[in-house]
């Protein structure tokens, strides 16, 4: 993964905001993972079109007090890829 990579959500999963849980969740056959607030914000921006760097810029703009988010986002994206939540079309 580089800053120019374009992640998309693995079609095995469906991302959705759950009011009852007050968080984003990933739904998959017969199961669900709850995402913490920052994971949810990152996942919600992944649309198969934006590059990693665009996603980071958007997050910086929305959370101006958060400091540099680059490493945190990259770290999450790596984990998410390991968990197969994300794929990259090369």
């Amino acid at each position, binding site marked *: 993964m580089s800053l120019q990579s374009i992640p998309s959500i693995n079609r095995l999963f469906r991302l959705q905001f759950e009011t*009852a849980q007050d968080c984003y969740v990933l739904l998959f*056959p017969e199961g669900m993972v709850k995402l913490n607030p920052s994971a949810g914000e990152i996942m919600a921006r992944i649309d198969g079109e934006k590059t990693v760097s665009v996603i980071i810029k958007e997050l910086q703009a929305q959370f101006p007090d958060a400091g540099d988010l680059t490493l945190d986002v990259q770290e999450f994206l790596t984990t998410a890829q390991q968990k197969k939540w994300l794929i990259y079309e090369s």
Partner: protein
Amino acid sequence: MSLKQTKPVGPPFWLLAELTYDCPLHCPYCSNPTDLGDKADELSTTHWKEVLTQARAMGAVQLGFSGGEPLLRKDLEQLVEHGRELGFYTNLITSGIGLTAKRIAKLKKAGLDHIQISFQGADPEVNDAIAGRGKAYQQKFEMARQVKAQGYPMVLNFVISKQNITQIPQILALSTELDADYVELATAQYYGWAYHNRDHLLPTKEQLITAEAQVNHYRDQQDGKGPQFIFVTPDYYEDRPKACMNGWGSTFLTVTPDGSALPCHSAKLLPLTFPNIKDKALEDIWHKDFSFNRFRGDSWMKEPCSSCSEKEQDFGGCRCQAFMMTGDMDATDPVCSKSKDKHMINDAIQSASSPSNPLVYREAGRDIALFKL
């Protein structure tokens, strides 16, 4: 003064909509009740939509359409569409019989998220013998191909029994060939028809050890690719029972074809009266009905469970299993080594090594009295 701590009851996470008991297959491991009910009592489309709406409002997230064979309901697409609009993750649990490429596409358009197809074996001979129907295997195989071609996540479910457990290597290869995402290799649970046929279904301990080793070996070679295999062994060979669906009335809500609401899909065999969604709101049923509260918490337990340090982990085991084997639904699950009835499990294992009664295929109208010991 001590106040009894009771955990607040959360919403049901899963709604299992058993749309019909009708099924084109005749599997002897079927866990449906042996008294199959009357088609005329099936819920209407309006009733089902209302059930879905209410369950979603309570916070349910996963919606499973099963049966019998849910494809036999002509309003399946309508119900999928309604469920998906409400925000459910929609699962279709099917035998694959009656499925066509066209119907798969229609269901996709309605918003269906996932299709699970059950297989009885890894080749036509074994599969069709168990399913009690010719050409079933071929049909399932082709439909599995279609499901993946049309972009669905796919789960394959193999019910493992003595009749197919020697096929594990072929089953693993077939699942990979079909590009399944998840594969459940589950040894049958012995309720309903399966209880009657237990001697013919329960594999030996040696067979299970071999099968598990084969699955582990295959997993090691997968290198993170291909299907994810989930192997579920029967609790008969364990010292502790399985936790009952995360606790009775905690996660699962089943609605049967006639509208009965159950805390688990086989609860109907218990000597309890279950409410019907035609008479009461789901919210009331879930939180207030006597039957749903009957095994919540631990005040219903007897010894050895009531003073056991592990009661939070397994909730005393399965109520259906306890009742079927001992005739007492409050008894400790006989699977537990602390149960005074453990010998019943051992006897069952013994008797499965040389079945004396014939195998009975599931069929409507065939009357099997519930077998109590």
